[in-house]
């Protein structure tokens, strides 16, 4: 069983569009959305929710006013400036527990709170896990890990060949949690100076975690010159450009209607996505052949 993660560095390059198309093209797989603070894949997979579970692994410090003698040791030791005037700001508190540890009167305790929900679902494409984070809640890395684990375990139980992971933009906690230990990363980029800059950063990250990396250039015809430069860059780093998708408004139209684009239309966009999938499938089945 293999894990394939779709990431991008820069946001809005087309990760979810591609992931949803893979969900439609792949067989015998489990899907999950690790973009936990702006999950969108469910909008295209049309899931039926089987189970809804509150996530309670985030913690926040609470000061018991009656027991507190306002010595200020907690505030002194808090590295996140979350305590002022002997009150905890729940948004700034990281739930590390240092204040609880240093309080001489045991007036502080860490309390679990609900930071969101994990949904176990079924779709016409197979099992699918995603989450909804409560507004502004933290711990996105931990949540991404949790979702991945569930997808992984179910895939193992079911004898599935593949887990497809939709990642989040950036290079921080949730991205690191989404890519560590995966077999293949597909980086979706676009031929813009921003896309190019962000691609180099995300590739550094996949190289750091030694994940085999493929690149897909979306809307490649917006700037053929930068597309060429990206191709050269990938070649120099030894990463294969698995495909180049042209700009086409039909991609947005498919999303608006709630379909993976490969189910909505047959054109040069979907031909290319199918070609990319074919390449990755070879990698999933027998990496030696490539």
């Amino acid at each position, binding site marked *: 069983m293999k894990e394939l993660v779709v990431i*991008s560095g*820069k*946001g*809005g*390059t087309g990760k*979810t569009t591609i992931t949803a198309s893979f969900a439609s093209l792949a067989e015998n797989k489990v899907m999950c959305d690790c973009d*936990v*603070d*702006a999950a*969108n894949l469910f*909008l295209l997979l049309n899931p039926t929710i089987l189970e809804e579970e509150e996530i309670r692994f985030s*913690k926040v410090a609470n000061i018991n006013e009656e027991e507190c003698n306002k010595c200020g040791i907690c505030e002194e*030791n808090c*590295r*996140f400036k979350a305590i002022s005037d002997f009150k905890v700001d729940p*948004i700034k508190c*990281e*739930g*590390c*527990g*240092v204040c609880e540890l*240093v309080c001489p009167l045991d007036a502080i305790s*860490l309390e679990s709170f609900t930071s969101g929900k994990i949904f176990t679902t079924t779709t016409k494409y197979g099992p699918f896990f995603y989450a909804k*984070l409560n*507004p*502004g*809640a*933290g711990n*996105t*890395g931990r949540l991404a890990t949790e979702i991945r684990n569930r997808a992984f375990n179910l895939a193992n139980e079911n004898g599935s060949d593949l887990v497809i992971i939709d990642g*989040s*933009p*950036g*290079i*921080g*906690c949730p*991205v*690191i949690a989404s890519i*560590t230990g995966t077999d293949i990363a597909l980086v979706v980029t*676009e*031929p*813009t*100076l*921003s*896309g190019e*800059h*962000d691609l180099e*950063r995300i590739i*550094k*990250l996949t190289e*750091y975690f030694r994940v085999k990396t493929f690149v897909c250039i979306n809307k490649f015809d*917006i*700037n053929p010159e*930068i597309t060429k430069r990206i191709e050269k860059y990938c070649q120099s780093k030894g990463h294969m450009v698995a495909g180049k998708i042209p*700009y086409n*408004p039909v991609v*947005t139209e498919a*999303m*608006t209607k*709630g379909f993976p684009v490969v189910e909505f239309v047959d054109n040069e966009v979907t031909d290319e996505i199918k070609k990319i999938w074919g390449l990755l499938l070879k990698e999933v089945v027998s990496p030696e052949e490539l």
Partner: protein
Amino acid sequence: MIISIASGKGGTGKTTIATSLALAVSNIQFIDCDVEEPNSRIFLKPTIENSQEVNILFPEVDIESCTFCGKCAEFCQFNAISVLEDNVLIFKELCHYCGGCKIVCPNDAISESKRSIGKIEMGNLNGIEFIDGALTVSYPTPTPVIKQMKSYISKELDTIIDSPPGTACPMVESVENSDFCILVTEPTPFGLNDLKLAIDVAEKMNIRYGVIINQSDIGDNKVKEFCSKKGIEILLEIPYSRKIAEGYSRGENLISVIPEYESKFKNLYKKIQKIINSERVSSY
């Protein structure tokens, strides 16, 4: 006055809006808080004058003094420490630099040393005071970099903050203490879904907000319907244009591609000033 630009969904045009606003207004401070993928300097092209490291205190274990009691690992809320039979591993991908392990260690075997997790750069262009920061690749936590940049918020100038996407800690840290938040979206189901999430955060943080719809003529009408139903002001609409997309790809700012946008962004700024001022008056 602090105006932040956020979105929920990535790639909706935050940086385009933030840099256009800065160029139209000028005489302003600009902070790019998207430290995972900072892009605004591509469009503003500032002259960088200063830089500084962002250091955190990272724990180290002196194996000679360690008794492998496991108290540090037990304490760590982030599972960043693994105590083995004869070694202790600290995972930098998980550590939040809280300092708790050092305090909890009964043998004083843990010390902390400075480590750089990123870099802040400061510069200037035509009256715009520019600050951005970059998180070093492989470190998971952007918030210390964002915090350090925000400690330089100007007392004299108004500030524009370009926020990272999403609705989790990096976005919260970036928009915190803003007087107004511009939420940039696109008229698609993804755009609408993530706009709603971003609105939830703005409302929870008591930040006044308005919406800009980018590529306003693609997709469907549901963002507009949602905004009018909720009474949310649509501050500006920017229709899709291949010319804008191509200009963006080359790092050209919206205002230099289509100069008419300069007055639109000046008006946007005035509109936001008016909203903030009217709120101040009404709260007396």
